[in-house]
């Protein structure tokens, strides 16, 4: 690996991290606000009426899902928004005229986007401590799931950012795809409680595997096979990396 490429990677990563930290009221505070409301309404007010799930209080049960929800949306939106904005302002040309290879562009955006996602997840977890005391069974799995999920959705956000032609295109996927899939991905319930049809339908939702794999790290139980969850995450990461590399090589939406 060429040293100058590592410097370019660090430069892009640093620039992106400085950007989202500089505008922290827009990037880091909203997830804390939103997830606090979830803890309060679903966990405290409604959750107190719901029985324990596999011996875990409902409030504790939703913690991994809400953390994961924050990781997913923030890592995705960070990369999609930032990359499209650089296209819109044409500052992406600073990167395109440089000798930085495409993997550096992907690496810089994805690592910084993933970091924002993880940071938001960490903050949401911090908030959850005010409401409950989640237990930790497999710290290694927790770290692996949060990192892989953040990377996968940052990669997805980059695909969105590359292909987007207008600002609306950046918000379509989070609104109409990610949010429904996350809500239906077992954040607030165990799919074991669902009728067969819905349970089977839920199993085609990739976010279900991420949420449950992450939850397994906390409480040691899951609605799906944890190894399959890891496999799905790795598969998505590889596929989305290939898609990004192809799009950048062809210059789709970037070169005429």
């Amino acid at each position, binding site marked *: 690996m060429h040293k100058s490429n590592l*410097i370019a990677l660090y430069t892009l990563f640093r*620039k992106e991290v400085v950007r989202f930290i500089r505008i922290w009221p827009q990037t880091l505070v909203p997830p804390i606000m939103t997830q606090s409301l979830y803890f309060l309404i679903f966990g405290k007010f409604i959750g107190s009426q719901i029985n324990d799930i596999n011996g875990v209080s409902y409030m504790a049960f939703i913690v991994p899902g809400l953390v994961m929800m924050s990781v997913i949306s923030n890592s995705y939106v960070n990369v999609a928004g930032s990359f499209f904005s650089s296209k819109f302002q044409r500052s992406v040309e*600073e990167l395109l005229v440089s000798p930085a290879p495409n993997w550096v562009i992907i690496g810089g955006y994805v690592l910084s986007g993933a970091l924002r996602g993880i940071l938001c997840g960490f903050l949401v977890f911090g908030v959850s401590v005010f409401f409950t005391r989640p237990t930790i069974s497999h710290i290694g799995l927790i770290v692996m799931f949060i990192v892989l999920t953040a990377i996968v959705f940052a990669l997805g956000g980059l695909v969105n950012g590359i292909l987007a032609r207008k600002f609306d295109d950046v918000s379509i996927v989070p609104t109409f795809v990610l949010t429904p899939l996350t809500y239906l991905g077992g954040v607030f319930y165990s799919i074991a409680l669902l009728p067969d049809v819905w349970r089977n339908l839920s199993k085609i939702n990739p976010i279900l595997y991420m949420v449950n794999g992450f939850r397994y790290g906390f409480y040691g139980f899951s609605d799906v096979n944890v190894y399959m969850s890891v496999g799905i995450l790795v598969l998505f990461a590889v596929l989305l990396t290939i898609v990004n590399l192809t799009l950048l090589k062809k210059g789709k939406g970037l070169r005429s």
Partner: protein
Amino acid sequence: MSDAITITDLKKTYDDGTEALKGIDLQVKAGDFFALLGANGAGKTTIIGILTGLVNKSGGSVQVFGKDLDKQFNEVKRMIGVVPQEMNFNQFEKVQDIIVTQAGYFGIRRPQALADSERLLKQLELYEKRNVPSRSLSGGMKRRLMIARALVTHPKLLILDEPTAGVDVELRHTMWEYLREQNQNGLTILLTTHYLEEVEQLCRNAAMIRDGKIVANDSVKNLVNILEVETYVVNVDQVKSMEALNGYNAKAVDGTTFTLDLRKDQNVSQFVAEICKLGMTIHDFRPQGNRMERLFLELLK
């Protein structure tokens, strides 16, 4: 002198079917200050886009300092600094950050980039503005920022796409001086401009492009010599009989001014002598308009 740029049969057809380049052949020598001239839509920016990797070519080959654009894409880009026609930096980023970040993309370590950026900001009189967001700069300052950003990567070839567009006269002259100095220090410069006076002031060689084809490629001096007729504006104390100026194409503009078309075979001193014979005193004698511009129009006829 080796070639900085060798372009052979370069073609570009855009997705909408527009044939922007129809087989361009062009050589720019290392160390040259070369102008690429053409009307809007002639293909100048497309050539620059291909050289810098922002436009995919449809055919032909491009070499920069012997490196092939297709085979050594990143090595080629490493040697080029570009100042585009339109502003293309993050308007919310600070001035120095923009320069330092660009250096980082080219693999230059941050301490080195900071030192280089400070030097360039001082040279281009932007140092006082280094910590302000770029959006607060004036148009001329933004142009200079883009020059600093292009130079921080230590390019061997600097490409300037209409760098003085919208820049006031005084600043334009300061920029010319700076660019001339860079060229004297060995930097090869490829310039496109609509200020044709700029070409006469700065460039040694020039190519003219029309409808995606090169229509002239020579030294600026030789190109200027193509002009058959030079038009002058003459101010005198009082315009007298023009008919007496036999063999000269002179037209009165007002009571004290006339224009004169002087062919290459006609002598200025002889004309001045004729004027004196007629009892007119010359107060001012100057070329009308820009010679390159007239040449440009001549070639594009």
